[in-house]
């Protein structure tokens, strides 16, 4: 599996809340921390803006993983959006499982504006994890000719 995936570069989208995780990613940049380029960040005001449909759409469009970054519990700029996200992600993981997808293809992490290092580590470990999981079967079904590969 690992040797098969050596050339596999995961495509990951990240929904980062503006106040904590996006700012944490900015800090990683200011601090010149190096991490894999597989994650395309997108800014949302609050992790509470991230709904299940957005994540499913990303997986449908070929994402191998979806990362969600929010403020730590108690720190949400909008009082409680991150708690709602936490509950939604739990349900979403179950839905992914029911659909035959690995629930780890969606991942929620609390990253504060002062945690540039945590942002880097999160990206590093998530990219590695998705690399080990292999391409998303949804993505594969979209891009690979039928019968060429099946790792779902």
């Amino acid at each position, binding site marked *: 599996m690992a040797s098969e995936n050596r050339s596999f570069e995961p*495509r990951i*989208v990240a929904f980062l809340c503006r*106040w904590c995780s996006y*700012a944490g*990613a*900015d800090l*990683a*940049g*200011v601090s*010149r*921390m*190096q*991490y894999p*380029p597989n994650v*395309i*960040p*997108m*800014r*949302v*005001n*609050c992790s*509470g*803006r*991230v*709904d*299940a*449909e*957005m994540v499913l*759409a*990303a997986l449908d*469009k*070929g*994402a191998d993983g979806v990362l969600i970054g929010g403020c730590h519990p*108690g*720190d949400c*700029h*909008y*009082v*409680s*959006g991150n708690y*709602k996200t936490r509950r*939604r992600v739990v349900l979403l993981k179950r839905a992914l499982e029911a659909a035959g997808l690995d629930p780890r293809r969606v991942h929620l992490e609390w990253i504060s504006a002062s945690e540039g290092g945590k942002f*880097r580590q999160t990206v590093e470990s998530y990219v590695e994890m998705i690399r080990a999981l292999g391409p998303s079967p949804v993505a594969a079904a979209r891009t690979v000719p039928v019968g060429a590969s099946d790792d779902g």
Partner: protein
Amino acid sequence: MQGPRIGVFVCRCGLNIERTVDTEAVAERLAEHPGVVHTETYDYMCSDPGQVRIKTAIAEHRLTGVVVAACSPSMHEPTFRRAAEEADLNPYLVEMANIREHCSWVHDDRDEATSKALRIARTMIEKVKGNHPLEAIRIGHVDKCLVIGGGIAGIQAALDVAEAGFQVILVEREATLGGHMAQLSETFPTLDCSQCILTPKMVEASRHPNIDVMTYSEVLEVSGYVGNYSAKIRKNPTYVDPDKCNLCGECEKVCPESAPSEFNRGLTERKAIYIPFQQAIPSSYTLDENTCLGLHPLRCSECAKVCEPEAIDFDMLPEIVDEEVAAIIVATGYEPYPILNLGEYGAGDVPDVIDGLQFERLLSASGPTGGEIRRPSDGRVPKRVVFVQCAGSRDPENHNAYCSKICCMYTAKHALLYRHAVHDGEAVVFYIDVRAGGKGYEEFIQKATEEERIRYLRGKVARIFREGDRVTVWGVDTISGKRVDLEADLVVLATSMNPHPTTETVTKTLKIGCGGEGFLKEAHPKLRPVESLTAGVFVAGAGQGPKDIPEAVAQASGAAAKAIALLAQERLTHSPEVVSIDEEVCGGCGVCVGMCPYSALSLGEAGVAECNEVLCEGCGTCVSACPTGAAQLKNLTDGQIREMVEVALADG
């Protein structure tokens, strides 16, 4: 309908972006992206010539949207939006693609970074294509400011705002203004008398035509938004009319009931009818109903019988006052760490183990001993006093993890004042380190140690207990490595600063955050230290974190300046990137209403949701909960996000 005409401006940022991202290649490839009619690269897009290029291109190419692929939007989004506005393009049709912080600075490989920069830029092009021109929401406001907390920070903030010509309501829950500063004897490092510098400010606040002082009062509810908050304040009954009370004190003499004096921190008693201290503001007695035998002529009423001006009114009721204010300054202050939590130091068990604020009362000329240092148990003058620093601070296993910042200085002051008062007395200080950062602070410590021969022992105290009429202190001197057993007459614990117990209630009332330690949370620890994350609510004083008087005063003036800047504006602006409801689609289920932390959403008469744009902060939590897609965030709709995701993942 005319299609989108997007201009993309790729910044090289000197070499900051160019080093790892091939900006020419990015611009070339993006020129092929549907809807893009113009691309260019430049060394510094944020510079004046860079902005001129954007403005020129907007006019020349009749652009309907602009993407600046450069640094983080937190750096220059306002810059480029303003530039677009100057070229008559709505500022909300300008977006930044962050190819520096999120790309060139974090990747080495030029091909990989260039490819990622392209993807990031494409997401923003798709976003701009879905953006609509918006106008900032402008709201009127009232001209009043509410200050919560009447300690030195609250007083200073109230005075500054009032001096600027705006009305202030200063709410204090105790019977007098002054806070803890009124209890202090002398202040470090200058040793000026605390009350002598505080009471003129108390008087000034109470006499200022623009300040309405409400003591013995609490803020019950706050609703509304920046510029237009409604506050419900309860004025608790003091049962004494301050306009009639002439401070003769006859009531106090005849009152049969007493309770520990809050002002003297339990070192003395006060009567049920009392005045906290002589210079209290308002200058009036207060009848504490919890201590009083009963607010009824049949129960006691001795005080009312002797009150010549007939100031006592047992029928006084709590009064609820509604106030409309534009800004709120929270200065709820601190409380020393509860001494009873320090059982290992004999606190609560050994009468001659006291906290720093109690020692202030012993030192104070207005204190229970008239400024003579006499220990609580037998009134003897202590010949050896042991001071224990970091009592409750810097002890993450058992107490507070943080440093309380002021204790090194006030302990040195205590030891020095003790030596001034008791010439043959010995002062011993246990410390972990001496932290004396501040103007004249280190010099003060040097003076205390050298001139006053105060013995500083580096180490922690393990246990303190009573032996006969003395107090035994077991500790370790970590420099010599030896155990130290000391017999002391009095032990003073330099207890840490905790947020005042009411802080949590106040933060919940105002919906502003508390940090992990329970202190008021500032919007940014460095760049926005006096603002809360809620617009129009500011923080000041020791409620925000341990600090000494000059810092509290400076922060209060800072918070006041922020409040004045808000009050002085004719109209306030609010981001228009808020939620809109498609009435055709909304089924009126009301799920969004429960999601909104700001009560911005409600079900209207038509049975569909309505969004009060002024209250909406644009978090979008309701949007993700809306089952029909009727709720959408302006300029970040579900549809826009779908397009963004698609191009982020597309090949090439």
